[in-house]
């Protein structure tokens, strides 16, 4: 090859090596420049961070860094790049060849030499061509296959790259670790021309900083300090709406942190921390409200059966106390819009509420007791907290109550058709059913029932929670026979449909149909006990009288001295009287009880009943207030130990005591007589009852089926019971006859004998025995025939007994009337004698000897009067018509006669004649009273006309009193005219008073006083006071009150007798609404002109015919009217 060619080849190969060298230089230069720049930057930042360089230094540093960067880039990057790009001159081929020769030891200088030979133009001048060529050829062969590029390595570049990477990593690390410092420093360096304050020596790291919290939440505050940790820092808090902040100090904890707590935040606040002039940022804790219940309303709908209205509880009252089954509706309004709400019960059941905006509601039924609370979530999901736990309590629906206040006791019924009862039931919400339950518990003929039979009792519509239900129990279905006993009670069911009706049963009572024997035996027992007790009382009174007689006698013997012994005896006597009084009270009660029982059992005739009532009244007066007063006075005299007072008291007591004893005796005798009448009533009743039962048995026997042995046996048994009754009747009649024999003159012994004989001859017992046997042998027909005969015999016996009963009454009345008539005649005779004596006495000369004769005559009259009194006393043992008032009048007459006698003895004409006049007056009064009693007897029973008359007069008096009262009220101040009016009223009051006193007197005389309620004498006394007030013009409110009392008593006095008449019927029972159809429309035209006949009748009546004729005309027209109406016969 030519030398030229070799040089070109080398040149090319040298250029490739140079390019490679430039690339390596760029890479290495870049890594180096980067490393240096980074180190310089870090150094600058470090300086800035540490020393907070001022603006000039920072500017210098900044620009130095920039210059550094430019230089490094220019030198280490741009320059090799310029060479690579061919812009800048690179190394020469020679240099390159030398560098290659150094890199390849095998070549060493050969390549430089070769390059010089190839390129030196002068070589040919000193060497041969060939040699040159051969040398070059040799060189060429040597370098052929050699890679000159490998002489350039990138090892340095890699090392520099490693430096750069390390430096960059260190820088990144520093920035990560101290971002604030390095970034701050970088920031300040970038803004080299701006002045920066010196950074704080520390800074606050605050947790939580800004935060949203729920109202009431407690927020902990943690402050960490970065930098120089101060010993204490201040926390400034500014609640929302507050101008100034509240500060407090926070102390450093052992770990260098600071803690605080924002407790139960209520409102939004801002806070910051500061220490040593360093302030943290201003943070905000934003408080958000929780949803809460603004209002709660609970609506209670009680179960329908209670008929109670809906009830809304007071606002915000969630506790519920209601009946089981009550529907509870809870409605709430929240403070915030709600997302959901629920009722949470204590038994873990949750019930969602229907939500609308801020409102929510839920309904549930009260079935058990528990508690509940409400949970709310607002639209942001914040839940309510601290819910109120409400209690649900069940008010128990009480059990109903039922009672049977009427009759309210076990009782014997006399009427086996019905029993009137009152059932009182109560329940808190009403009833659904009421039944009467009964069962037979005792019977002579049937087995006792085990199960109760129920009779539904209708509950009137509209009955509320308390019902008083009158019910008439029809006993006929029970087919009671004497001595059957039924127990019964009432069961009521309430209307609780939620828990099921509850029932209650009343107290169980028994109902018994007593046999007549029992009733009679009971009455007899009470009568005997009464008689015994009364006999005992009489004995005690007798003994007491003897004691007092002893005292009187001993006092006389001891010259009127009152010793211890007398005192003891008196005391003992008083005690005996007291015991006697108590005994009489007991007897009175017994008689009352006995009468009531007999009346109830309808075994007394009206006449006997009236006598028993009279007897009770008599017993009422037996030991009246007068006797008690006398006893009291005697007691006081005894205490005083004054012989004089004692003597006087004994004297006064003597009369009352005698009255008391005689009254007991009289009562006893009357009781015995009434008892005979009662026994007679009993016998009649028993005979009637037997007849009724016998006829009923006969009817049953006729209808009985002969093939039914049980029925026939039952009839036989009943017939035997009747047989026993027949025996009892026989015994009773015999006993009655014997009792009557004690009073042979008054009793119809012959009639009784006849009745007794009839009974014996009838052979009733035997007949009934035969009937019973026939029935047992199933022979109904003969039995029925015998029953008919037995019934006939019974009829006869009853008739005889009734005859005897009538005879008894007539006998008694006749005898009493005769005796009274005699007594009245005697009294009138005595009155006539007394009058004559009085006239004679009036005309006597004071020295006349006639005084003695007159005294003697007066003595005779007195003796006769004593005899009459004795007779009256005897009569009083037989009849009630002899009243205590008659006794008093006779007693007054006797006393006046005694005094008249004393007057005659002392020749005191005036006194004697005055007393004789008094005696005459008393005798006339007694005669009048006897006449009144006789009239009353003649009119039948002592009531009737007399009472009606009294009533009319009382009515008149009440009207007069009303007029006086009105007059008094109308008078105001006292003008002369009014004073005169008052005087007139006083006069009227006086008239009314006198009328009343007279009335009271008459009522007492006719035995009617006790029937008038109220104390007429006391009323008269008040009238007297009113009269005085009116007469004196002394009109006070008290006067008016007295007047009102007087009127009221006058009205009451009348009412009392009326109430007596109606006491069994009048009831103030509130009415129950009755639904009924309306009556038809009325036609007024036909109303008035309808009946021509009646108009004619009226005309006829107005003609003024006599009463009898009036009646006849009325009757005629009535028949005519019936005929015209088509329902009667034509009048004849």
């Amino acid at each position: 090859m030519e030398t030229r060619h070799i040089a070109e080849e080398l040149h090319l190969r040298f250029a490739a090596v140079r390019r490679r060298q430039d690339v390596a230089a760029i890479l290495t230069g870049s890594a180096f420049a980067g490393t240096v720049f980074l180190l310089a930057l870090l150094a600058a930042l470090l300086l800035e961070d540490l020393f907070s360089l001022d603006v000039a230094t920072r500017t210098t540093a900044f620009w130095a860094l920039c210059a550094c960067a430019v230089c490094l880039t220019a030198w280490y990057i741009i320059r090799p790049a310029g060479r690579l790009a061919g812009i800048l001159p690179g190394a020469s081929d020679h240099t390159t060849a030398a560098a290659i020769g150094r890199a390849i030891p095998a070549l060493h200088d050969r390549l430089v030499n070769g390059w010089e030979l190839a390129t030196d133009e002068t070589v040919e001048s000193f060497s041969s061509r060939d040699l040159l060529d051969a040398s070059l050829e040799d060189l060429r062969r040597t370098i052929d296959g050699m890679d000159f590029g490998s002489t350039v390595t990138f090892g340095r570049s890699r090392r520099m790259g490693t430096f750069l990477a390390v430096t960059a990593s260190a820088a990144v690390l520093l920035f990560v670790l101290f971002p604030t410092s390095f970034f701050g420093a970088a920031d300040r360096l970038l803004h080299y021309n701006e002045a920066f304050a010196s950074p704080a020596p520390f800074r606050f790291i605050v947790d939580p900083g800004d935060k949203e919290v729920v109202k009431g939440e407690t927020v902990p505050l943690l402050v960490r300090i970065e930098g120089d940790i101060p010993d204490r820092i201040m926390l400034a808090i500014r609640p929302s709406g507050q101008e100034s902040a509240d500060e407090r100090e926070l102390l450093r904890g052992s770990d260098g942190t600071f803690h605080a707590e924002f407790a139960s935040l209520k409102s939004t606040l801002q806070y910051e921390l500061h220490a040593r002039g360093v302030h943290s940022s201003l943070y905000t804790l934003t408080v958000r409200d929780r949803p809460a219940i603004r209002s709660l309303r609970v609506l209670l709908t009680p179960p329908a059966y209670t008929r109670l209205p809906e009830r809304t509880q007071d606002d915000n009252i969630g506790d519920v106390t209601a009946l089981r089954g009550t529907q509870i509706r809870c409605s709430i309004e929240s403070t915030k819009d709600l997302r959901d709400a629920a009722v949470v019960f204590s038994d873990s059941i949750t019930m969602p509420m229907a939500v609308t905006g801020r409102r929510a509601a839920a309904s549930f039924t009260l079935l058990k007791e528990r508690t509940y609370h409400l949970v709310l979530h607002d639209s942001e999901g914040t839940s309510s907290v601290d819910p109120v736990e409400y209690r649900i309590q069940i008010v128990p629906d009480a059990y109903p109550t039922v009672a049977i206040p009427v009759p309210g006791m076990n009782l014997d019924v006399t009427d086996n058709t019905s029993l009137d009862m009152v059932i009182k039931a109560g329940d808190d919400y009403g009833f659904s059913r009421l039944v009467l339950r009964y069962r037979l518990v005792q019977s002579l003929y049937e087995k006792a029932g085990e199960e109760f039979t129920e009779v539904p009792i209708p509950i009137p519509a509209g009955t509320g929670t308390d019902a008083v239900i009158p019910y008439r129990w029809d006993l006929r279905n029970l087919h009671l026979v004497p001595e059957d006993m039924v127990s019964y009670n009432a069961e009521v069911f309430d209307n609780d449909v939620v828990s099921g009706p509850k029932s209650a049963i009343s107290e169980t009572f028994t109902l018994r149909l007593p046999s007549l024997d029992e009733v009679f035996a009971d009455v007899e027992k009470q009568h005997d006990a009464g008689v015994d007790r009364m006999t005992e009382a009489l004995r005690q009174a007798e003994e007491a009288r003897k004691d007092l007689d002893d005292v009187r006698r001993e006092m006389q013997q001891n010259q009127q001295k009152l010793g211890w012994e007398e005192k003891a005896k008196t005391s003992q006597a008083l005690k005996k009287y007291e015991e006697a009084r108590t005994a009489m009270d007991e007897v009175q009660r017994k008689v009352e009880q006995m009468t009531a029982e007999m009346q109830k059992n309808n075994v007394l005739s009206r006449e006997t009943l009236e006598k028993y009532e009279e007897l009770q009244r008599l017993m009422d007066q037996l030991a009246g207030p007068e006797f008690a007063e006398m006893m009291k006075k005697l007691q006081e005299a005894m205490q005083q130990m004054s012989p004089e007072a004692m003597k006087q008291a004994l004297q006064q007591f003597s009369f009352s005591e005698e009255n008391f004893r005689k009254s007991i005796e009289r009562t006893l005798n009357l009781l015995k007589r009434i008892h005979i009448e009662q026994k007679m009533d009993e016998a009649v009743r028993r005979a009637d009852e037997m007849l009724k039962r016998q006829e009923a048995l006969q009817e049953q026997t006729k209808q009985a089926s002969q093939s039914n042995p049980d029925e026939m046996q039952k009839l036989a048994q009943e017939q035997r019971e009747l047989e026993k009754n027949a025996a009892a009747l026989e015994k009773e009649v015999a006993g009655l006859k014997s009792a009557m024999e004690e009073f042979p003159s008054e009793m119809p012994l012959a009639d009784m004998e006849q009745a007794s004989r009839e009974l014996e001859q009838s052979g009733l017992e035997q007949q009934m025995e035969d009937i019973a046997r026939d029935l047992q042998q199933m022979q109904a027909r003969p039995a029925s025939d015998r029953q008919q005969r037995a019934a006939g015999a019974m009829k006869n016996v009853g008739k005889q007994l009734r005859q005897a009963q009538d005879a008894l009454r007539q006998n008694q009345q006749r005898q009493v009337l005769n005796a009274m008539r005699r007594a009245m005649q005697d009294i009138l005779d005595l009155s006539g004698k007394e009058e004559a004596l009085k006239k004679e006495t009036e005309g006597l000369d004071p020295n006349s000897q006639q005084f003695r004769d007159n005294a003697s005559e007066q003595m005779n009259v007195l003796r006769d009067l004593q005899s009459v009194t004795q007779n009256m006393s005897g009569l009083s043992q037989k009849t009630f018509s002899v009243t205590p008032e008659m006794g008093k009048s006779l007693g007054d007459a006797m006393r006046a006669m005694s005094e008249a006698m004393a007057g005659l003895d002392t020749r005191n004409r005036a006194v004697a004649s005055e007393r004789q006049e008094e005696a005459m007056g008393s005798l006339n009064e007694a005669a009048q009273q006897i006449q009144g009693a006789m009239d009353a007897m003649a009119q039948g029973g002592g009531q009737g006309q007399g009472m009606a008359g009294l009533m009319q007069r009382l009515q008149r008096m009440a009207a007069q009193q009303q007029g006086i009262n009105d007059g008094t009220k109308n008078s105001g101040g006292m003008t002369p005219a009014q004073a005169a009016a008052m005087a007139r009223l006083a006069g009227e009051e006086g008239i009314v008073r006198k009328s009343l006193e007279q009335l009271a007197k008459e009522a007492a005389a006719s035995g009617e006083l006790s029937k008038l309620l109220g104390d007429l004498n006391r009323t008269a006394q008040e009238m007297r006071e009113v009269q005085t007030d009116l007469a004196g013009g002394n009109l006070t409110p008290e006067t008016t009150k007295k007047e009102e009392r007087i009127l009221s008593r006058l009205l009451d006095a009348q009412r009392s007798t009326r109430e007596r008449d109606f006491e069994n019927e009048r009831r103030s029972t509130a009415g129950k609404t009755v639904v009924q159809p309306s009556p038809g429309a009325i036609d007024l035209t036909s109303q008035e002109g309808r009946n021509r006949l009646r108009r004619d009748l009226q005309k006829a009546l107005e003609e003024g015919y006599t009463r009898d004729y009036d009646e006849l005309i009325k009757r005629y027209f009535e028949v005519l009217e019936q005929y015209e109406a088509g329902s009667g016969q034509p009048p004849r």
Partner: protein
Amino acid sequence: MRNARPFIVVCLLFPALAGAQAQATSSAFGITRVKYAGGGDWYNDPSSEVNLLRFVQQTTGIQTDARYRFADIAGDEIFSSPFLFITGHGNITLTNEEIRRLRTYLDNGGFLYVDDDYGLDKPFRREIRKVFPDQDLVELPFSFGLYHCQFEFPAGPPKTHEHNGKPPQGFGLFRNGRLVLYYTYETNPSDGWADPEVHHDPEEKRLEALRFGTNIVVWALTH
């Protein structure tokens, strides 16, 4: 219209009373209890009319003289009263003179209200037949104005007191188309007018009775 009723009643009242009360000292309306013979307690429950009159004044505005007044039919006082009242238990008897006077009273504008307090029915019917032999008492239909004139009584007379468990009835007697006598049987409103402590009636019963009594008064005064 109902509110205007008391006013109308008062307007009508004055002419009605003008003749009847010529002798009265006051124009106020009063009730006169009739005192009768025979034994019935004509005087029972004297507080009845007093309470009714007070109630009438309160509820209708009619001026009343709330006093207990009574008079004999035989006396002239009855002609001073536009409204007589008979009640009681038991018997009532009228003399021929009383029958004549009562007929005159009723035929000349008077009004008689009779309330059977128990037991008065038979004797009263007997006696009133003597007063008006040509007329019967007729039971008033429930549509009759008396039951509606002031307070509504769609089912006729109320049952104030139980007597014999029968339905309450109101009977009337007409003269020249005018109701001159009204008689209540088995209802006994006048007991309901009495002071509460007398019969211990429930308050609603008393109120009902007083309302019914007001209707009788209003009807009597306006017809």
